[in-house]
């Protein structure tokens, strides 16, 4: 019989007294479990957030944001060129800090970075102490053994050439950095035309501008020329400096 099995099972179940749960107890226990789960979830979420935040803090903390720059390996000058003494840029790179007249500067230790630009081959920055300004160029990675070509201020700009070595550098290329000042007040748009004819826009901040350009100019070698132009709103662009 089709129903025989069902009947047998029904009889077996019927033989037991009906199950009557304590509904109030169930509801109370259910509420408690839900509350506990919420608390557990909140704690787990908070813990996860704390772990992530901690990891982020540690990771961010490894980035040196201090005004006092770390000491980089000393550079042994090998060039025959007469140059200012090399100071120590951050990150184990090599480089040069000079004042506007081209004399050596310990600008790496100065507390204030006015502005900087960077690319694959390094960074150019303007640093400030209470009374002085330093124009700095770094070359990181394997750096440049001949890292210095003096670049004092002339015709209103500090022009510097540095090596472009390692990490995708093309043979016969170098980095040209152009530093300068802009008049007080509303800053102009500053463009720099390098020797290869390329015109790029400089970064301007707090009365200074910096521009970096990797161009085909064998290193070491003569410093290529550059033309700096200012453009104020509503006025024609003009050549501010040329060297």
């Amino acid at each position, binding site marked *: 019989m089709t129903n*025989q099995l069902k009947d*047998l099972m029904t009889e077996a179940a019927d*033989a037991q007294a009906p199950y009557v*749960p304590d*509904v109030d107890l*169930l509801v109370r226990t259910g509420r408690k*479990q*839900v509350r506990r789960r919420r608390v557990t979830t909140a704690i787990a979420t908070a813990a996860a957030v704390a772990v992530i935040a901690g990891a982020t803090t540690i990771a961010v903390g490894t980035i040196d944001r201090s005004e006092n720059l770390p000491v980089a390996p000393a550079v042994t000058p090998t060039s025959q060129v007469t140059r200012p003494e090399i100071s120590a840029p951050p990150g184990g790179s090599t480089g040069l800090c000079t004042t506007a007249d081209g004399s050596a500067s310990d600008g790496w230790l100065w507390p204030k970075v006015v502005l900087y630009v960077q690319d694959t081959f390094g960074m150019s920055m303007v640093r400030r102490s209470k009374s002085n300004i330093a124009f700095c160029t770094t070359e990181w990675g394997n750096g440049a053994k001949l890292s210095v070509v003096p670049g004092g201020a002339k015709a209103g700009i500090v022009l510097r050439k540095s090596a472009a070595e390692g990490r995708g550098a093309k043979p016969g290329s170098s980095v040209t950095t152009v530093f300068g000042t802009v008049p007080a007040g509303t800053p102009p748009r500053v463009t720099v035309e390098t020797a290869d004819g390329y015109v790029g826009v400089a970064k301007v901040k707090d009365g200074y501008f910096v521009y970096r350009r990797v161009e085909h100019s064998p290193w070491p070698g003569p410093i290529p020329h550059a033309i700096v132009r200012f453009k104020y709103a509503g006025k024609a662009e003009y050549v501010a400096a040329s060297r």
Partner: protein
Amino acid sequence: MDSEAESEYTAFVTHHANAMWRTAYLLCGDRRRAEDATQEALLRLYRRWPRLYRKGGIVAYARKVVVSATLDGLRRRSSTELVGGATYFTAEADPTDHVGRAERRLVITQALAELPERQRACVVLRYFDDLSVDETADVLGCRPGTVKSQTMRALDKLQLHPTLADFNLAELKN
């Protein structure tokens, strides 16, 4: 959970708890264990009640969790323990009951107890709860083909069980 949903939950428990317990009892053959499994299932149901209350499918979910809780409870026990156990049914025999009814009851519960749990669940869900193959597969979390094969094997074993020799279970296969 808001008060309306909670009162619906209370009503559901009042009306369905015994049915859930009966399924659990046939699956494990032990009143206390069935009560534990049913209670656990009802608590799981409480935790998900707001969502179930909105989306529906409460009965199906309740059946699924009670089966799951019962089978989980069995797995936690010693693997050497026979579900229910011969002594259990002897102890539960009601002396006031008619001899015939008591015997029939013992027959099926003992026969079910000797089935593997998946086969037992298929038999209980298909022939006690009157679920279709697809519904049974949904409850057990397996494919309909598995339900069919497990049910066939279970019925074969039940047919060969000495205490069920007098019953004609062959028709159930059709």
